């Protein structure tokens, strides 16, 4: 198989992993030698027609696998053609793409061949060759295998910026059914190992006097859960996510809506979950991490352990907690402003800055490009008071979800919000 055919196959097989981040690592640059730089912020070098960011060359070393995870196109019993990159091919491809500014670096994963140790050794060889022989300073993310020996995990972290182990499914029972060879306790054990090594390296760096201490995955670890391949509800997914953030200090939990694959197994649902479900989970995850919400609070916006698909989780929460509103834009503390639907953290900080200099009006928010239609019912400002009864009206939800921007059609509705 020629290089191009391999690339097509092994990129195709890697696309079900949602992670593509290239951010949050140490700063490096090539002025003292080497090739590449990382400046903290990730860069999306392209976007595919699925709207996803392309930041890294995301491929598998091989799509051959001895495991048989039902949701995976590479499982042992799937009939896809198999291929394998050589270490030299992967190194060459990464460098060629990097030099042309197509990518931030490499995200390398693999099916399990021979043994977990053997497989991860191959991944390590690619990363080590890039770093040692080619002075590569770009971003490297290695998918690790929980069953691999601790020394190998340690070496992976020396070359990689980020390591990840996918938990895939939030419930032990579904993992047993769909990924019989995977072992949740082993995954937890490996995450624990990574987490303590990451913390150690960070501490060593903080207290280092002279020579740089050995590095270990400076961009931390992440994981992925598949959404919609089993019957787990949003409560168990978000709960698992919260547990992982807490226990292992993960940088990110990715949610990947189960996507139909060619050669699908009969154990899987025939149709994918709505793409919106994944989106709502990301929004909820964000609110948990940066907006001071608790898991149960967010879930209280939906019904029966599922988030509301139709509206974003903050709005859903607000509509079920209307007594909290309206919030006085000139008096409310930061935590409360953060709970106003349509107000993002950055604009909350701008409002707080503006408050130091005078009273903030609704007209000022328009200049910050805040969606007025959405925030207005929940805010009190010197130039604005929502229509009496609006906040308690059963019609509020319908008004807020009506499609905006339909020109004349939408306008009368909008006006009724600003009497």
């Amino acid at each position, binding site marked *: 198989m020629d290089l191009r055919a391999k690339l097509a196959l092994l990129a195709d097989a890697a696309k079900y992993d949602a992670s593509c981040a290239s951010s949050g690592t140490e700063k490096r640059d090539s002025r003292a030698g080497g090739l590449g730089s990382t400046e903290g912020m990730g860069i999306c070098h392209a976007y595919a027609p699925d709207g996803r960011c392309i930041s890294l060359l995301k491929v598998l070393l091989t799509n051959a696998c001895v495991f048989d995870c039902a949701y995976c196109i590479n499982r042992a019993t799937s009939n896809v053609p198999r291929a394998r990159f050589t270490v030299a091919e992967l190194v060459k491809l990464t460098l060629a793409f990097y030099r*042309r500014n*197509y990518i931030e670096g490499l995200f390398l994963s693999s099916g399990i061949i021979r043994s977990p140790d053997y497989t991860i050794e191959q991944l390590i060889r690619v990363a080590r060759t890039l770093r040692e022989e080619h002075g590569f300073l770009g971003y490297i993310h290695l998918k690790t295998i929980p069953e691999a020996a601790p020394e190998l995990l340690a070496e992976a972290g020396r070359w990689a910026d980020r390591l990840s182990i996918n938990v895939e499914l939030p419930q032990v029972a579904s993992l047993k059914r769909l990924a019989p060879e995977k072992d949740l306790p082993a995954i937890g054990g490996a995450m624990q190992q990574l987490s303590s090594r990451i913390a150690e390296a960070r501490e060593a760096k903080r207290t280092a006097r002279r020579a740089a201490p050995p590095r270990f995955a400076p961009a931390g670890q992440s994981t992925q859960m598949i959404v919609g391949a089993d019957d787990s509800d949003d409560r168990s997914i978000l709960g698992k996510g919260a547990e992982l953030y807490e226990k292992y200090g993960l940088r990110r939990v990715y949610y990947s809506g189960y996507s139909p694959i060619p050669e699908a197994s009969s154990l899987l649902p025939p149709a994918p979950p709505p793409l919106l479900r994944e989106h709502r989970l990301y929004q909820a995850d964000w609110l948990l991490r940066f907006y001071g919400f608790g898991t149960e609070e967010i879930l209280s916006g939906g019904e029966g352990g599922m988030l509301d698909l139709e509206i974003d989780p903050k709005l859903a929460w607000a509509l079920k907690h209307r007594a909290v509103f309206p919030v006085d834009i000139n008096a409310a503390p930061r935590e409360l402003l953060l709970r106003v639907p349509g107000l993002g953290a950055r604009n909350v900080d701008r409002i707080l800055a503006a408050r130091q200099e005078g009273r903030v009006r609704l007209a000022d928010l328009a200049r910050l490009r805040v969606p007025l239609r959405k925030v207005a019912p929940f805010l009190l400002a010197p130039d604005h008071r929502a229509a009496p009864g609006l906040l308690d009206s059963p019609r509020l939800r319908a008004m807020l979800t009506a499609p905006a921007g339909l020109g004349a059609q939408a306008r009368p509705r909008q006006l009724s919000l600003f009497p």
Partner: protein
Amino acid sequence: MTRGQPGPPEDAAGTREGGEAGGAGAGRAAPETFTVLLPSYADFAAWRAAARKLLAAAIPPEAVEWRTPEDPPGLFTGPPPPDAVGPPLAVPRDFVEMAELAVRHADRERFALLHSLLWDARARPGLLRTPTEPRMARLGAMARAVRRDAHKMHAFLRFREIDTAEGPRSVAWFEPEHHIVEAEAGFFVRRFAILRWSILTPRRCAHWDGAALAFTLGARRADAPAEDAAEDLWRTYFASIFNPARLKPDAMRAEMPKKYWRNLPEAEVIPELMKGAEGRVRAMLGQQPKAPGRRQKPGAK
């Protein structure tokens, strides 16, 4: 420059705008227009030095025309402003950062906007900390636009490698919206110090020879190489990493607007990927689920 104002903070209402600041101290014969010619289109240091002088001489924004060598010649050129020395200006750090970005904006009013903010800030120092004030909001929008343009340059610039007498050289053609080539060249030095490269744009070109940066005047698209051997592999990657079951072209276009496509080698396969997506998904959803291990004849759909 002064646009429709919202109500200023009540306590400042009596002291803003108006004559008390406007050149009263300088004792000059009114109305005169000065021309400030900056040495380059995005020279922050030169702008700052000029603004300091203007404030020291109490010359109001309405009396200044800002010009750079890149602007079309004006109908009228006034005298340069008189030299004056004033105390250094204390302004918030955030404002300086925004101003540094905003001077790279293509908007010809950028220098005058900044001047008018500094002018009014003398009577109302809080102005520069009020992101909701209309001119501050405009400044914020300009800074954001420049930052976004820089991100897009970091992201969407593509090098093509050519052989030259001195060895390989990487050459890119890029069309920034704002005057960012000088400011962003450093990013490419930090990343590609080991290569020799040129970034060609319509207004300025940057060249790195492995040791030093040089800037030259603008170039044309045809001056850059037309292809590169790696692009075929890159398109293959782009096509393969795309998941047809999740077609979201609007999300793609929001982040990678069409105006960039003509300089992105991968963009040429987008239409065909979008056209083929539906059929590929139908084939996957319509297929018989596989009992483990049994092979279905390929191409049976």
